[in-house]
């Protein structure tokens, strides 16, 4: 072992780097992940994402084998349960197909057309996670597939997972709602509340500030129409304990339907639907206003003349 002892210089260097690190952290907090920090993050992810994608193709079979070996007994039970579910689903599918045929018949009869308000969906593979302490998920779809920062993400059953935090042309980072510092606006029955993450648990805390009625075990928690991040009515979880309001405030624990650690596939929702049209719509009133003003001006000048 070569002994180039320059440890006398190490402490000042360590202190300098730590101060620089703290400055970066403060900068990131102040910019809330945007600005220069956002550009740096996107740039780095753009460079690394293709390597991660290639690596995930290579390591996925290995990970699958290791994962399967560790969950062999669980997989058997899951397999039996899934077969049962498949049989039920096939039975109900026949009924749904029948209803769809009848619906189509009635639509033709009354000359109805679909409203066209379906939300676009992008199915993406989870290709990785930053480390054991970061709950974020890295997916293999990005801006080239229509994924945009802030879009909601659900699992293949439609249960809420999280939101897109950053995006590159070929990948995106998803922050699950359990790791998000922002509360999620939800509805339980007819009461609107907030869902907040908790320390050291996957369960979330439900807070209803203007509570009028108790919530009960098994009550479904859905995203609210008030939410700015999610479309209304997406299932989030179930209440795990009965809770009654105490001076208008109600607090309860919610078990989520989705556990992000186990996700392999996610669905990114193009919500709000068609942001391009939405932004064009936003310009329409101003154009109309301009036209009206011009007309008004013309009218006035004509009147004045």
């Amino acid at each position, binding site marked *: 072992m070569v002994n180039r002892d320059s440890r006398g210089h190490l402490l000042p*260097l360590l202190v300098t*780097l730590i101060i620089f690190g703290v400055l970066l*952290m403060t900068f990131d907090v102040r910019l809330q992940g945007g600005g220069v920090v956002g550009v740096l993050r996107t740039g780095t992810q753009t460079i690394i994402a293709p*390597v991660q994608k290639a690596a995930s193709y290579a390591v996925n079979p290995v990970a699958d084998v290791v994962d399967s070996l560790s969950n062999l007994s669980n997989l058997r039970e899951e397999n039996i349960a899934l077969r049962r579910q498949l049989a039920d689903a096939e039975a109900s599918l026949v009924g749904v197909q029948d209803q769809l045929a009848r619906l189509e018949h009635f639509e033709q009869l009354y000359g109805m057309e679909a409203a066209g308000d379906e939300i676009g969906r992008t199915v993406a593979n989870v290709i990785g996670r930053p480390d054991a302490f970061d709950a974020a998920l890295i997916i293999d779809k990005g801006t080239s597939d229509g994924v945009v920062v802030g879009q909601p993400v659900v699992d293949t059953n439609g249960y809420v997972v999280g939101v897109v935090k950053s995006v590159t042309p070929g990948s995106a980072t998803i922050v699950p709602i*359990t790791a998000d510092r922002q509360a999620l606006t939800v509805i339980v029955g007819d009461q609107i509340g907030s869902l907040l993450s908790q320390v*050291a648990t996957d369960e979330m805390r439900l807070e209803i500030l203007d509570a009028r009625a108790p919530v009960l075990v098994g009550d479904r928690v859905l995203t609210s129409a008030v939410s700015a991040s999610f479309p209304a009515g997406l299932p989030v979880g179930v209440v795990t304990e009965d809770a009654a309001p105490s001076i208008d405030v109600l607090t309860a624990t919610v078990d989520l339907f989705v556990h992000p650690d186990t996700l392999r596939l996610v669905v990114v929702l193009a919500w709000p639907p068609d942001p391009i049209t939405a932004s064009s719509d936003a310009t329409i009133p101003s154009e109309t206003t301009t036209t009206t003003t011009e007309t008004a001006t013309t009218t006035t000048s004509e009147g004045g003349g």
Partner: protein
Amino acid sequence: MTILLFAVVTQTTLFGRIRFIVPDLVMLVVILLALTRIRPEVILGTAFLSGLLVDLLGSSLLGLRAIVFTTVAYVALRTKERAENFRFAVALWAGIITFIGVALLVLIGTLFGQTSLLGANVASRVLVVPLANLILAGLFGPLFVRLVDGDTAALRFS
């Protein structure tokens, strides 16, 4: 840098998928670099940059892991003599320093409001990650040092 990039990619892909084996490969590489002949200043700088890289790929605060990895590298450089006696010493030394790093990560993260670091099973992860690093350091630590130094005689225990 190639080894660090390899560690970052493996960490975010392979170990991001396997739920029960959760080493912190990048932190382990930073720790093991202290046993090589690379200049200590370069090791500190590399530790800072690799922490920054992991921060940029994740969702937590920029600079958090940079601080932690730099501190871990410093502790490793100051204590590396304790790891040079036998293979188990390398493993134990890497495991203990990883534990310090992980504890520091949770502590600083909490101070800066990174509640996502304190998600489910945080207590077990604080123990499991150092344990995984301990095993990997025992198995591959000496080989890593030989590879980086290009010296087949490095860390040969009789």
